[in-house]
């Protein structure tokens, strides 16, 4: 991928301390960004920055609770002119509909939707004329049982992305989303309720995704070469969402 040589080549990646966020940070650094790796876990963010540095890139760790509006605003002010924001940080948990409480919904939306809004608002102001925002949605947005609070928060990410794309287009800022399918992260491997082989059987290609698969899509949408793409949610799910006619 072409190296960016523009002055404002700074990218912020939230949740950059592990998994998909770490892969995104590494890809954006490789594409020539100075990457601000923001994570609730500062030590993990430092680890990502160490990986970036080892690969010859530029990075900086920030300990950040994305639901803390003041901290978000302060960080973006410190960072200065911005080229790219990746809203990757989010939470997930499983809870059947009849056990869900309103507080579960509030907490999910506070992190996955409201915090994303705050970050976008501050970042758009720091982008001036031109930039790229990429939000991480999920294929759960298409409808998923057992975690309706999560699924609908990600559907909100899709709707938010389309609306903000329209609003920021005159400023030359693109807003897109990437919706990952089942990605084999450490977090997924650690979950006791998942059977990886059963999940693989649902994939047309028989394999699960990797954090690099998501990071490559994010890096593409964040690059100037994708400047005429906005408001889109790109499913990166190995074709899982194509439906049931898989012959299995």
């Amino acid at each position, binding site marked *: 991928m072409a190296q960016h040589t523009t002055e404002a080549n700074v990218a912020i990646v939230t949740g950059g301390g592990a998994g998909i966020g770490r892969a995104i940070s590494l890809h954006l650094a490789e594409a020539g960004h100075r990457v601000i790796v923001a994570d609730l876990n500062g030590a993990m963010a430092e680890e990502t920055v160490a990986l970036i540095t080892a690969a010859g890139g530029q990075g900086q760790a920030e300990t950040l609770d994305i639901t803390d509006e003041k901290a978000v605003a302060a960080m973006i002010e410190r960072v200065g002119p911005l080229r790219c924001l990746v809203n990757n940080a989010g939470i997930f948990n499983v809870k059947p509909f009849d056990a869900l409480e309103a507080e579960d919904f509030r907490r999910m939306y506070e992190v996955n939707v409201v915090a994303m809004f705050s970050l976008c608002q501050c970042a758009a102001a720091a982008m001036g004329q031109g930039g790229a925002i990429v939000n991480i949605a999920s294929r759960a947005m298409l409808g998923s049982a057992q975690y309706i609070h999560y699924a609908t928060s990600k559907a909100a990410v899709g709707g938010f992305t389309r609306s903000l*794309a329209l609003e920021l*287009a005159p400023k030359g800022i693109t807003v897109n989303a990437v919706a990952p*399918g089942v990605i084999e992260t450490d977090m997924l491997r650690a979950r006791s309720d998942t059977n990886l082989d059963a999940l693989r059987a649902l994939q047309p290609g028989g*394999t699960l995704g990797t954090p690099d698969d998501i990071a490559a899509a994010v890096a593409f949408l964040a690059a100037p070469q994708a400047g005429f*793409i906005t408001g889109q949610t*790109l499913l990166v*799910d*190995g*074709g899982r969402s*194509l439906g049931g006619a898989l012959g299995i």
Partner: protein
Amino acid sequence: MTVENKLALITGAAGGIGRATAELFAARGAQVIAVDRDAAPLQELAQSGITTIIGDMTDPALPETLAEEITRIGKPLAILVNNAGIGGGGRLDQTSDEELRRYMEVNVVGLFRLARFAVGQMQAAGGGSIVNVASIYAEVGAQNSSGYSASKGAVAALTRQMATDYGPEGIRVNAVAPGLIETPLTAERIRTEAWRHEIFVEQSPMRRVGQPQDVAQAIAFLASDEAAFISGESLRVDGGWAMGRYPREAQI
């Protein structure tokens, strides 16, 4: 993007999106076979080291010609960019059977035939990547386009079916859905037809039409190994146009 050293077949490569794609792939180190029915512009591509084939999408013998060329090159076909197609306007009541058949013959039958050929080649090689060029008109309503939109709708559906059928064999199939792209032909229309300029420039979120390179970049991404976990998708390259018109005076 990793298309380096891969053999890529690109149809409709003489101009517009196809040409930009052929040039981008070549610049990234792919070995390109460029197909078009127009010989003169192909010669320019040939001068930059691209293999060129003069061929018509409606010719049932085209796959045979391509197979011979691929055998001669001695490398498996890794990528097909099914770009060749014809455009044009006309509401249903202004479109004859003959015109409709022409859209279908080139945009659907020709594309279907080449996809079938490529799948055969890719099955033998153990995988590959196909990118079909559909249109934003396959996804949203637009005035004055019946036959063309119907043909592109078929391309969009075929993309999903192929992705489902051939995913297990390592063949990914995706589409791009371009908005209005500036080519020599459309540039003239945008200049001379006020309504077109109003809808596609003044009322578009980004206030511009697309360039062939915008679409070529998306095709190159979807075709590459970077998109290894993307299949059955249609990526809009339209500057947000299909999400809704956005009149300058009404920012609400």
